[in-house]
């Protein structure tokens, strides 16, 4: 393996090489540190990037990896760099969530996923830029500026895990963690031409993830191939006693060992009503081409109907903003975060000023919306009604799966990455970017985005596959077999 640039290697290949000693974890790390150092300004993928600081922080982990190698202890992600979305706690790091409010907030503890990754031998490779508190679909809502798309710098990366997806696409890291509340892993993965998995709700611990909308949020891996994603997901999927919504999945089969199983006999559902207006022609074309690939692989395509999915966006924006308005209440300038420069005379002024100064426009908009829908007199009309709709959407999926469908395919997003600034004045058109991804968060099912081609402008197109709860194995296997068939290896040029 020696002589191969680690930047070109998969996570699994790096781990094998490091475990068997044919490559040094320290060398892998320094390649990626240098690559990030060279590219981060141009793409604005990272927040508070400081090569030396990150390097210093890797030393302890490198010792751990080296000790494991000497003891011939296999680490599934030995020496694999992973960039972390800036809303996941890693002790000692600034965790800003893309917000001015938390620009000095140093994490007091490790998220469960960080502990799991460290134990598996992964090396943390900086903190990635994101839409403030995860609220956005283009990464233009970051207090630290937008992330640029590695395929075309004048286009957005997608969001809210834009920094993570762009960093993987640009080879600044092998893997990244994102979080997905309404599509925030899948949509930027799609825009940046990489793979992103949103696990089933409860599969991965949320302990240490700064909550945006608690009943929607899931941490998910972003990578360049299905095997890397499967391996990362397998080690993140554990029951966590610190997260009451985490599910005990210990009896479930690992997804990585399922990858080679043929797809013959799998049924993929498509819903015509989701493929109408607003869908870009190139995206539509690629989508149907990808279905042909699955037919070749032995899958059956079946038409289904998901009648309530057209209500996904209003349902989501009521429930998620309601939870957000509550989750963000703790950012009040009293104990942590940034207190207003002129706090005013009263306690009420202190709150109002701190929150006015600390939060960006989109966050304020969502807090106000969420506060409104929970207000006395409006609760039933909005929050309670939206909850009932959420249940109907869940039933739509349950009915489809009962009807004999194993997977449901849609484009990940209706368009490819759009031009920076194009949608910032129109919230609704921005919200529509999430039309395909939101339903999986509403219903808690797992979903994955994989790259299936480029549009005529040379921007990546993503295919979304959604599966039954805790059937991530089928999603990852389907992505893997597609990769094996198509050998899609295009990467952005630098």
């Amino acid at each position, binding site marked *: 393996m020696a002589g191969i640039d680690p930047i070109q290697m998969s996570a699994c290949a790096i781990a094998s090489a490091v475990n068997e000693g044919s490559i040094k974890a320290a060398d892998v790390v320094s390649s990626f540190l240098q690559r990030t150092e060279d590219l981060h300004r141009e793409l604005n993928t990272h927040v508070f990037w400081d090569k030396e600081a990150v390097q210093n922080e890797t030393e302890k982990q490198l010792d751990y990896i080296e000790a494991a190698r000497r003891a011939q202890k296999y680490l599934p992600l030995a020496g694999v760099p992973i960039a972390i979305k800036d809303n996941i706690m890693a002790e000692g790091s600034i*965790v800003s969530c893309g917000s001015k409010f938390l620009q000095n907030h140093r994490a007091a503890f490790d998220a469960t996923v960080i502990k799991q990754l460290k134990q598996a031998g992964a090396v943390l490779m900086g903190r990635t830029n994101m839409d403030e508190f995860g609220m956005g679909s283009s990464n233009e809502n970051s207090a630290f500026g937008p992330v640029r798309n590695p395929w075309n710098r004048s286009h957005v990366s997608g969001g809210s895990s834009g920094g993570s997806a762009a960093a993987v696409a640009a080879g600044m890291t092998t893997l990244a963690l994102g979080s997905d509340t309404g599509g925030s892993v899948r949509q930027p993965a799609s825009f940046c031409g990489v793979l992103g998995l949103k696990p089933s709700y409860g599969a991965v611990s949320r302990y240490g993830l700064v909550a945006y909308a608690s009943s929607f949020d899931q941490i998910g891996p972003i990578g360049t191939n299905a095997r890397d994603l499967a391996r990362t997901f397998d080690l993140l999927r554990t029951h966590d006693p610190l997260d009451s*919504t985490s599910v005990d999945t210990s009896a479930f089969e690992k997804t990585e060992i399922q990858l080679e199983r043929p797809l013959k006999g799998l049924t993929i559902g498509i819903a015509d009503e989701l493929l109408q207006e607003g869908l870009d022609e190139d995206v539509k074309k690629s989508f149907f081409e990808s279905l042909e690939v699955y037919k070749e692989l032995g899958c059956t395509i079946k038409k289904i109907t998901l009648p309530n999915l057209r209500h996904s966006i209003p349902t989501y924006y009521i429930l998620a903003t309601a939870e957000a308005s509550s989750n963000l209440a703790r950012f009040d300038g009293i104990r942590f975060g940034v207190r207003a420069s002129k706090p005013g005379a009263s306690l009420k002024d202190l709150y109002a000023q701190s929150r006015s100064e600390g939060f960006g426009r989109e966050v304020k908009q969502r807090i106000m919306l969420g506060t409104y829908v929970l207000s*006395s007199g409006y609760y039933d009309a909005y929050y309670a009604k939206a909850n009932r709709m959420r249940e109907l959407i869940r039933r739509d999926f349950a009915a489809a799966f009962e009807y004999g469908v194993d997977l449901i395919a849609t484009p990940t997003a209706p368009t490819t990455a759009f031009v920076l600034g194009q949608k910032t004045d129109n919230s609704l058109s921005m919200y529509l970017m999430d039309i395909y991804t939101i339903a999986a968060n509403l219903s808690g099912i797992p979903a994955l985005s994989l790259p299936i081609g480029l549009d005529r402008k040379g921007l990546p197109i993503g295919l979304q596959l959604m599966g039954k709860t805790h059937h991530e194995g089928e999603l990852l296997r389907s992505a893997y077999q597609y990769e094996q068939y198509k050998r899609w290896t295009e990467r952005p040029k630098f």
Partner: protein
Amino acid sequence: MSSTSVGQSDQSFKRLLARYEPVIGLEVHCQLNTASKLFCSCKTEFGSLPNQNTCPLCLGLPGVLPVINKTAVDYAIRMALAVGARIREKSVFARKQYFYPDLPKGYQLTQYDLPYCEHGSLTLDNGRVIKIERIHMEEDAGKNIHGDNASYVDLNRAGVPLLEIVSAPEMYSPEEAVDYLRKLRAIVRYLGISDGNMEEGSFRCDVNISLRPRGASKLGTRTEIKNVNSFRNVEKAIAYEILRQSDLLDSGETVRQATLLFDAATGRTQMMRSKEDAPDYRYFPEPDLGPLFISSERIKTIQFLIPELPEARKKRFQESFVIPEADAAQLTEEHELAAFFEDVVRLVDGKVAPKIVANWINTEFLREMNNRQAQWASPILSAGDLAELLRLIGEGTISGKIAKTVFEEMIEKKVSAKSIIDAKGLVQISDTGEIKSVVADIIAQFPEQVVQHRAGKPKVFGFLVGQVLKVSQGRFNPALVNQSLKDALDGDPKS
């Protein structure tokens, strides 16, 4: 508003209650004495340094998630069973949202529309059954401390588990309200789920009160008095509010629905906020927890742990020890007191009637416990020591009167009854020969009184007994003195 204070005008207060009926409901916040908080493993102990018992969760740091304390739920189940309430199989924690520095997350986790427990009840001394509408679990907030130029927040208490116990508005006098609170506090102490300490704030009370003309069935407009911190103050706050509301009604005004604060220093209530200013808490189900499920198996297991409760114990004391209800009620108000009584009864081994044990404990013993501010963990005397003393009375070794001096000396010197009696030679004398000789002396000394007695003057006999006892310095057995004197005076043929 009336400036009358309650104590000065008991008569007018009674006349007022003849016209108006107060309707009172109580909301009690009872702190559970679990070792750790409701949603994290921080300690709950009282009196630690500020913010010593905190962690990322109870500090409300971003990224943390609550995990329910199973022991707190078990304690809550005990409470529900003790008041015969219905336990919901599936209950829900909600977020009650408001901004305040002592509320680190910006919301309090509490049960709202689906509490774990409903439909309990409790019986007052006067026999009336008060419905407990609901009991729910919630977390406590922290505490703001105001200095000269700055305010500080202590979050040691943030996240400490509470039960909120809500009665129906079914109490009709300050006395009933206080009796309800005493009964409730006795239950939580019996169950061992709370220390029920009002001063330290582990048993806090909000009072809802309205007035209606006697005979009317429609309820008047109520006010809510927040955080009244002693039984005495509950009584005072209710009495004050009865005066205030009746003054308004008498002068043709209306009572406005409001939340009031009781000021213990002045004995008055003050406006905290009107109904119009009531905050909108924007409750919604806590997504980080999911519903709380309580299985019938779990309830059954906990049922075994429910001790005999005050009401049942009182009845048992009345029946098996043949003591009056008032004595039994006093003895069973606190679990430790009742247990102490039972210990002493067992240790006197039938030599002393339980009624005498009850009298001793309820008067002498409790008085000294209070005077010396002793705790049950280290009482002024052990049950064994007290039993020994009482047994000595029962066996006739010392008189009841001597026993009282011995009792005090036992407490002071921490020595046994026997050693005091031996050292001071206090043993009661039952030697009839010795008694008879003194009786004869006294009869000889007081011939005039002997004549009076024989003429039928009743008080003289007591005087003569007194004289005999005086000679013996209280050590003669009084019953024998009585008998001997009677025999001597009335000319028993055998003497």
